[in-house]
């Protein structure tokens, strides 16, 4: 990857960022290729926007990898959607499911409700894949998610 050669200083952030930008640009290019008309219709734009948003999320998740629960949730969601459309990537799905099974043994352990539950519910809705996480994992995932959202925003 060319950008990786240029990456300097902090190793992890630049690679995640560069990986994300590469994947994102590639996805954008693919989406752009699919465009048939240059119509300015709102519906078309809306649909493209959604596709770009999904592409951003997925490229971010793939840049992070399957190490984080929220990235796994995003990728699984994408695979499920793809499955509905008929294209299922079996290899990736099995990898991610295996990861999820390994990690979620601990993750599904419901923590005691200590902090405000309404806020916890809100957080769970915001963070992808946060539905089944206990409080401590949820907080950790939120932290990583915030980091990656900032890199996403700064890269665009």
């Amino acid at each position: 990857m060319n950008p990786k050669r240029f990456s300097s200083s902090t190793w992890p952030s630049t690679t995640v960022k560069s990986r994300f930008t590469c994947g994102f640009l590639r996805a954008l290019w693919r989406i752009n290729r699919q465009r048939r008309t240059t119509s300015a219709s709102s519906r078309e734009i809306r649909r493209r926007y959604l596709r770009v948003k999904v592409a951003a999320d997925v490229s971010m998740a793939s840049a992070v990898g399957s190490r984080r629960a929220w990235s796994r949730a995003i990728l699984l969601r994408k695979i499920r959607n793809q499955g509905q459309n008929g294209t299922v990537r079996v290899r990736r799905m099995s990898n991610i499911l295996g990861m999820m099974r390994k990690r979620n043994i601990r993750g599904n352990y419901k923590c005691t409700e200590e902090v405000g539950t309404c806020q916890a519910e809100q957080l769970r809705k915001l963070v992808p894949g946060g539905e089944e996480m206990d409080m401590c994992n949820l907080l950790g995932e939120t932290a990583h998610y915030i980091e990656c959202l900032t890199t996403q925003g700064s890269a665009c």
Partner: protein
Amino acid sequence: MEPNLGTIARSISIRPNREETGLESLQFREEIHRLMIVPPENGSSFTALLELPETQAMELLHSPHSDKGVTVPLSGVPLHGINDDHKSYLPSFNGNLTFPSNKVLIERAAKFSVFASGEHSPETSSVPSDSSANLEKVKSEPADTDSNPNSSQLLVSDPTVNIKNQRSEKRKEREKKGKGCTKKTKIEISQDAEKLPYVHVRARRGQATDSHSLAERARREKINARMKLLQELVPGCSKISGTALVLDEIINHVQSLQRQVELLSMRLASVNPRIDFNLDSLFAPESGSLVDSNFSSMVSPLLWPEIPFNGNRQQHQQQWNFDALHRPLWGREEDSHTFITMENSLLSYDSANSASLHSNQLKMEL
């Protein structure tokens, strides 16, 4: 005498193999009583008992645990009982019974100052109290270290401790005793390095030593640590005190970040037709140019941070706003190469959202 000991040892070694599920405690008691009976009958010291069972029992059972049975006789008991199957209790327990070397025990007793203070006379009283107080004590150290001359007492207290250990199966923590033994000194025992997935929590003075409360406390500490991390991440959160408000801030921050990304992606989606260029040329200077474009990009979100995205109905309205704001930015970016600037502006900040406007501007730039 010796055949008796041999048979007893063999019976002990055989019986544990049969039971691997919950009834070891009872078996223990029986074996221990049997063992207890033996020394007084024979009048021989416990060392005689040591020789035979040591060799035989060790051979019979200690195939995997021989090392631990010898070197770590005391801590081996609770360790194995919790870690492995109940089968492991027995070899290690037999290792305790065998007492390969009393010197080892004495050394261990010297190590743990708690027990160093306890004399042998009050042992009987202190040991049961200790074991009762140590619901969480996986290491039956008091019982073990007190056993040197008072093997019987050890044998009696060991099963009780073991039973309690077995009862509290869901062990999450080991309590380092700071409180709980009223009769002994309050010195905390340093646990050996155990490669167990347990959370070691220090029970401070005046705190409950119940297993549940310990688990809750450990969890609370974990949660508090993560909250601190989050506070550092989110700007402006470190001044706020109180978890509820901090959480509100965090939620707001996450929502704003998501909205930012959505807006950027929306802009990109509308600008998409412009990505017709050679991506290789794009990729090469991309890393450097991204950094440059960051500044311009960060400016724009700040200019209109709260524009609600209500779908495409308002897009046209926004276009004109964007145009007005971004013409100056656009002009600034024209200084560099056309290809790169166009990609930069695409990536960093797009002025117009409508395709028509874009095409016009493209013509202008090219």
